[in-house]
């Protein structure tokens, strides 16, 4: 039995494409010294560095995320705006060569993507509706871009720590190999993410950035799952750093997802908050104290029920991405509506502001049970049980049909926090049980 066109031939072609990419990057590097434009020069340097890193990571043996990486680089190269002339020397041969090189780079990347595609490797399809997001003006999310850049540096610090921890892994060769693979792959993704943040003078291709961040998230979730499953075989230093790395990558992914949800909601020009359809909705991790504080701030002077998001971020000293988390939660709970960057308290939101503590709890409980299916589900399960008690694991298992383990725990913690405030159920921290002990009646 002989096979059709062996995959190994296509792989050789992809390796050739990646070698050409490396060669093009080297040609471009030679031009760097002749560029005087202070905005463009670092952008081009970032493209070159990322192209070299991508080629180095895949050209010996392409990895599964090669299509994602190529698509990310292609998007950045397309966004790279080559100036028409040098600010010091005017039109130069360097500028002309750079224009030609950009075209060659794009052609090379398209060829490589085609080859990857013939091997069945396509850029991942994100669960997020990225096509609807596209580019976002830098001015709109400048604070968030700085925060993302800082979070990427934090991820890089953990990567460096993992790299150092490799010395402790000698007895278990797979661990050392996995660390090399993970660290190398993640460095390419960090380069790509930084590149997306750097290119584009007025706007950032947020869809491309989100794809890179999703790849980082998947690589890290796979890595952490492997390290955890290996248990005692893994060195303590690696296990600890992997756990820290997981948190740091999740901080990056959360920031990106929050912006995407905000953009989509803004585009849809919401009058009413979107109705959540199922219990597995990734509820924004907002604490009651923060929610009540923000709703009070919107409803009181100087806003008196209507606020502008950037101004609100400044006056309340909340980072933009943290603010968007709270905004989403208040929207889902029906206490505010958002049109463009304007936030307006709904009638219920205004009523909440004017109410005393018990009235607030009743109002919050009604909205929670009406608009948040997970809260309603927990309450229903507890009501149906003869002893009105259920272990948290029961709900975690249900949530894990929709979310990964950590997300499920985070969502459950959020709804417990909201539910306890509203007193629709109680929670025993020591035993991990939910119950109807001392719930409010008649909500």
């Amino acid at each position, binding site marked *: 039995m002989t096979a059709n*066109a062996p995959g190994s031939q296509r792989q050789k072609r*992809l390796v050739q494409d990646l070698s050409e990419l490396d060669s093009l990057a080297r040609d471009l590097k030679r031009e760097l010294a002749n560029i005087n434009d202070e905005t463009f020069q670092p952008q081009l340097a970032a493209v070159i560095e990322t192209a070299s890193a991508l080629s180095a990571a895949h050209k010996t043996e392409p990895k599964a995320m090669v299509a994602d990486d190529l698509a990310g680089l292609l998007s950045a190269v397309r966004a790279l705006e080559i100036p028409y002339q040098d600010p010091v020397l005017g039109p130069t041969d360097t500028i002309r060569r750079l224009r030609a090189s950009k075209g060659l780079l794009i052609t090379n990347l398209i060829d490589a993507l085609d080859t990857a595609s013939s*091997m069945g490797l396509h850029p991942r*399809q994100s669960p997020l509706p990225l096509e609807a997001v596209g580019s976002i003006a830098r001015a709109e999310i400048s604070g968030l871009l700085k925060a993302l850049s800082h979070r990427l540096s934090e991820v890089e610090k953990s990567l460096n720590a993992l790299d150092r921890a490799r010395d402790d892994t000698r007895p278990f060769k797979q661990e050392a190999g996995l660390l090399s693979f993970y660290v190398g792959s993640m460095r390419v993704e960090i380069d790509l993410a930084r590149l997306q943040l750097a290119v584009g003078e007025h706007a950032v291709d947020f869809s491309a950035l989100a794809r890179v961040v999703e790849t980082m998230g998947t690589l890290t979730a796979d890595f952490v799952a492997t390290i955890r499953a290996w248990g005692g075989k893994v060195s303590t230093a690696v296990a600890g750093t992997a756990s820290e790395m997981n948190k740091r990558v999740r901080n990056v992914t959360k920031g990106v997802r929050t912006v995407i949800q905000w953009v989509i909601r803004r585009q849809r020009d919401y009058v009413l908050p979107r109705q959540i359809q199922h219990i597995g909705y990734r509820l924004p991790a907002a604490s009651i104290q923060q929610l009540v504080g923000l709703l009070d701030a919107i409803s009181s002077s100087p806003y008196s029920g209507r606020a502008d998001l950037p101004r609100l971020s400044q006056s309340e000293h909340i980072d933009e991405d943290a603010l968007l988390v709270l905004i989403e939660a208040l929207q889902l709970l029906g206490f505010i509506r958002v049109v463009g960057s304007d936030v307006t308290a709904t009638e219920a939101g205004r009523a909440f502001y004017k109410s005393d503590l018990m009235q607030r709890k009743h109002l919050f409980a009604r909205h929670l049970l009406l608009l948040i299916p997970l809260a309603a589900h927990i309450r229903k399960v507890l009501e149906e049980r003869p002893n009105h008690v259920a272990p948290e694991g029961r709900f975690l298992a249900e949530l894990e049909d929709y979310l990964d383990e950590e997300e499920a725990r985070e969502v459950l913690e959020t709804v417990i926090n909201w539910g306890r405030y509203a007193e629709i159920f109680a929670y025993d921290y020591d035993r991990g049980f939910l119950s109807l002990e001392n719930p409010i009646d008649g909500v």
Partner: protein
Amino acid sequence: MIQGFISYCHDDHRSFVKFQTHLAGIERAYGVKFWADTRISAGYYWSTEIEIAIEAADVFLLLLSPGFIASDYIFFREIPAIASRHRTTGALIVPVILERCSWQFVAGALQAVPTEEGRLTPILDWAPQRNGFNRAREQIGAAIERHFGLERKSTLGKATS
């Protein structure tokens, strides 16, 4: 008759048994005979029998999990032998992701299954799990069809090549 080989970690034996049940449909539809080392006991050793089975195989299914990657026997014996067979004969390798793990580390740029709407989800994360096994079976069948230029055998006829 196409010869197939299933590489799996013995820690995943229970999942392997379920997987084998789902593969029966592929064996019937495409005339593939899958071989796997079904010894349950620990103490892995490189046997001539395994070596012969790898050398005869045209299709390899890697049942990936953290235990699969951690297994010295698989990592240092089976994977190199399978990769060598792939390089020399163009044999088909399909990574089947049983449990979340860094499968890319061992499977490189291969198209893994099971996916849904372009996204890879390990079989044990599907609810119910049988949907994951079913999806993996469909996608393995499609990969075999493409690779060998086969058509699914009807209940009355034979596969054509």
